[in-house]
């Protein structure tokens, strides 16, 4: 923590605030996210309603907080699936090589060659819409990139002489993978974790915008924007605030990713 760059610290703090806000929003919001109040229909931002109210008179701030909760939860879970499954698979096939490696990499290449949105659409065509289905779909689609990343790292690392000398000393293969190699992938993993998180946020927002992701009554930032699109002029705060929150999340994490990469390069 001590010798961290100032810009990295700022990014980390903002990221922490965002995650915290999302967590809170997942369980508690200042107003109910579903209660409608006709008197507050399209009310502009005020001290009571920081981001104003929507066409049903619901508090936008509460809905944004709650939507953030859903978005961040979906993103964390999908990246988690991709990270764990992808890294373990990638490490194992990278270390042992052989036919399984070739086949798996071929499959990953095919999946990665396709536009993400298209793959998610096909997946949703199979699994149907909803919060959990989008998690499965995105989680599955994130596996290949983590497989590729960890495999590449492990191919590089396993040629290192300290791995050879561990083998010479008689350390077992599984121990070598998990205790000698994976700790050295930390910075590469961290960077792809952050990048993956961003992609997940964007993908979830896009899918929910298209009406194929999170379904009501669950709030989602993407869905809010799609509902708000028609009120752009009557109540500009309605689409603008959820949009800005998405931008802030993505911006923070992409800056964080960049800072982490810089740190990695600086050693």
């Amino acid at each position, binding site marked *: 923590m001590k010798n961290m760059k100032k810009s990295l610290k700022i990014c980390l703090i903002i990221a922490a605030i965002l995650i915290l806000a999302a967590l809170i929003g997942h369980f508690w919001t200042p107003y109910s996210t579903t209660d409608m109040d006709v008197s507050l229909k399209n009310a502009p931002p005020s001290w009571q309603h920081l981001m104003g109210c929507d066409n049903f008179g619901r508090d936008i701030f509460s809905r944004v907080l709650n939507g953030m909760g859903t978005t961040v939860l979906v993103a964390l879970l999908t990246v988690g699936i991709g990270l764990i499954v992808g890294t373990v698979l990638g490490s194992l096939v990278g270390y042992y090589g052989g036919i399984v490696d070739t086949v798996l990499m071929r499959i990953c290449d095919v999946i990665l060659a396709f536009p993400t949105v298209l793959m998610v659409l*096909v997946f949703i065509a199979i699994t149907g819409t909803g919060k959990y289905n989008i998690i499965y779909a995105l989680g599955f689609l994130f596996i290949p990139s983590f497989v590729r990343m960890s495999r590449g790292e492990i191919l590089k690392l396993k040629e290192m002489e300290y791995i050879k000398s561990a083998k010479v000393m008689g350390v077992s293969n599984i121990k070598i993978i998990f205790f000698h190699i994976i700790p050295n992938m930390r910075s590469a993993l961290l960077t792809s974790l952050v990048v993956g998180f961003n992609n997940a946020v964007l993908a979830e927002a896009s899918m929910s*915008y298209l009406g*194929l992701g999170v379904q009501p009554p669950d709030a989602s930032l993407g869905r809010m924007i799609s509902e708000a699109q028609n009120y752009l002029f009557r109540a500009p705060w309605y689409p603008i605030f959820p949009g800005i929150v998405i*931008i802030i999340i993505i911006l923070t994490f992409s800056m964080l990713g960049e800072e982490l990469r810089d740190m990695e390069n600086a050693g």
Partner: protein
Amino acid sequence: MKYVLKRLASLVITLFFISLVTFIAFDLIPGDSALTSLGTNATEEQIEKLREERGLNDPLSQRYLKWLSRAVRGDFGDSYQYKIPVTELIGKRAVTTLLLALMSFIFIYVPAIPLGMLAAKFTGKWQDRISHVGSQVIMAIPPFFMGILLTALFGVVLNIFQPGNFVFPTDDLFKSLRYLVLPAIAIALPKIAMVMKYLRNSVLEETGKDYIKNAVASGSTKKTALWRHAFKNAMIPVITFSTMMIGEILSGSIVVEQVFSVQGIGRLMITGISMRDYPVITALVLYVAAIVIIINMLGDFAYRLVDPRLRRQKL
């Protein structure tokens, strides 16, 4: 030549597998397309009749073979939803989407390459820092939100764009092009920032390399070394990156079509999914797959053309 044939063969095989996988996947789906088409009020008999009509009661292998034998002749069946041949349905929309993608591609690369070189030239100076912050912000805007902002700005504030007035390019090319400018910009903006950043970093990486030192030691000025040596080398990774970019553009267009109500394959896909219109989805998946694979092939060829290290290497 042998290489081209080999790649074409692998294209056909990949498409075959994709079709098989999609077919099986859709068979495993819990829902019933007949039920979706008829609504919940339909009687058992009506549903059964429709299932029979669509051949849903036949075993999977038989259905697949039937579909395959027709598909190789270019017949993908009729859409459940529109009741017209899928090929006819896709044709017009594919032209729209391809046109949109092409326009986006031009809008990305025409400004991004000079901007990237400029950013590399001004590296470390305030111009570079501003462009860096600016591109970070632009890249953070989701394409659909960018679309909404653009509609607001041009449609309502400046009043030079009418959302919803889409015309098929096959009907009126000029009007269609005019309508597609904004969607193309919405797709292109974040990608311009991406390509620019990528090119800048690539150029900077090359200028730090030893052969640039050697060029300078042989009497090149730094500027000649940049253009004669670094630029060409820096473009190699940008080309690989660009084949990926086309996938990204297609991704973007699927979403942006929805924002601007453009009748392209993205929109068709989305309605197809909500209506469980499987003949349409299967055909679209294969169609996009073919495009992506062909683009990757072209990218590989381009790569070989600029990088002599790959040219004489067997694959």
